């Protein structure tokens, strides 16, 4: 977008943030309205749709039999991919994922992987030979800011909703049996994203706030109140004080979200 419009917008947003306010009347630590709906795509093994204000994300999961990584022969494989499809925003273009889509997928991946949300050992069929591969596909349907938190929430909601097919091993071949078991998911990591504007941190930045922010910080927290992933983004900087303040706010926000959204 034209840098002049952004400069004008920035002034307005700065003035509001200085007073602890936002363009949409939220306080600087408020989330927009959050809605989670599970099981929205029947053909997927698991799915969820998240609305965060006007930001909308769908995540679908698929499970296949595949090969384990050589360094973890007895663990299933988790793959997270994100698509910023062009219908979601005038700034998204068709084509292979750009760096922002790759970063989004990797931040969502890190939260799930590092919190050990999925018991990957239980996804091993034959050590070193066959394991279950869980594909988590993040599909952004409307971009109105804070794709990370919406995608992370949709991803864990979809995983909690995921069914694994039953199987038995017959002469080295995996035979699929009728019926399903739930995917072993034991943690619910939640990502909390901040935008830094001047020297203020605001929670859950909307699109216009993201366009003018100096830096972005995402903190992912597991059920036990431990930090399991962090990502700073954008070209500004943070001070140690801001980082530590953000971790404390994030802890509170995660508790609120768990209370509000029963996953």
């Amino acid at each position: 977008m034209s840098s002049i419009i952004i400069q004008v917008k920035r002034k307005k947003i700065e003035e509001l943030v200085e007073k602890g306010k936002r363009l949409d009347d939220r306080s600087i630590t408020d989330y927009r309205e959050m809605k989670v709906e599970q099981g929205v795509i029947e053909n997927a093994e698991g799915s969820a749709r998240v609305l965060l204000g006007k930001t909308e994300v769908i995540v679908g999961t698929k499970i296949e039999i595949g090969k384990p990584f050589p360094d973890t022969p007895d663990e299933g494989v988790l793959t997270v991919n994100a698509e910023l499809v062009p219908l979601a925003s005038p700034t998204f273009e068709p084509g292979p994922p750009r760096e922002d889509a790759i970063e989004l997928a990797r931040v969502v991946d890190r939260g799930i992987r590092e919190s050990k949300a999925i018991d990957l050992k239980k996804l091993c069929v034959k050590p070193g030979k066959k394991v279950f591969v869980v594909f988590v596909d993040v599909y952004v349907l409307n971009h109105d800011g804070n794709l990370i938190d919406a995608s992370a929430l949709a991803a864990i909601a979809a995983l909690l909703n995921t069914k694994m097919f039953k199987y038995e091993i017959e002469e080295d071949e995996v035979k699929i049996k009728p019926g399903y078991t739930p995917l072993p998911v034991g943690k619910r990591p939640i990502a909390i994203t901040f935008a830094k504007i001047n020297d203020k941190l605001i929670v859950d930045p909307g699109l216009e706030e993201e366009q003018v922010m100096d830096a972005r910080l995402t903190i992912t927290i597991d059920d036990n109140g431990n930090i399991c992933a962090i990502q700073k983004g954008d070209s500004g900087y943070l001070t140690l004080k801001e980082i530590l303040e953000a971790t404390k706010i994030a802890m509170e926000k995660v508790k609120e979200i768990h209370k509000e959204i029963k996953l």
Partner: protein
Amino acid sequence: MSQKTEKLIDKKGLRLDGRKPEELRSIKFEIGILPNANGSAYIQQGKNKILAAIYGPKELHPKHLARPDRTVLRTRYHMAPFSVEERKSPAPSRRDIELSKVIREALEPSVFLEYYPRTGIDVFIEVLQADGGTRCASITAASLALADAGIPMRDLVAACAAGKVDSTIVLDLMGTEDKKGGADVPVALMPNFDAVTLLQMDGILSLEEFEKTVNLALKGCREIYTLQKEALKAKYLNVEKEVEE
């Protein structure tokens, strides 16, 4: 990970390579070693061997990327196929693309981008050998290369990771510690401004552990900053000598 065959920290509290928990690996810099580049630097940090080169400021291609009010910093972090145990495909991986982005964002706050409107500055990073902490070593080297290219900067950027290994908080994790350890927190700092320009984390840390780990990483950044400045000074003292001769 299935069986803990070896301890990462021995009874004396020393690490696999004999370091104390809060000790950096040995670091060596060489500045201005690539004749074709406008600026360059080589870093050896433990077994990491990384080259960084700067091309620019120069005309930007494709032209529509150019900005009317500032230069565009572009970074490419790339690993040589022989840099790791199993051959790495030379095609950029998703990890490479993410790291290129976070490295660029770690360097951008240090550069006066507005001094060179409508141009581009390319930062090329080649990891020749990797042993944990390559993104940090890349930032440290790239910042020196930018200084070597004579690009006006607010400060150097120094980067270092800290993490948790066998329930001890340690500085500057090497490959095995990174793989088998409990958490890794890479940090980049502009020491004169106390400005953190890179912060990532993976693993599990409590709030208290995280605070301790970040502080240790920042301490590592400041130590590296001293080494960076010494390396730059040494280079210019050499230039002075050559001129006098």
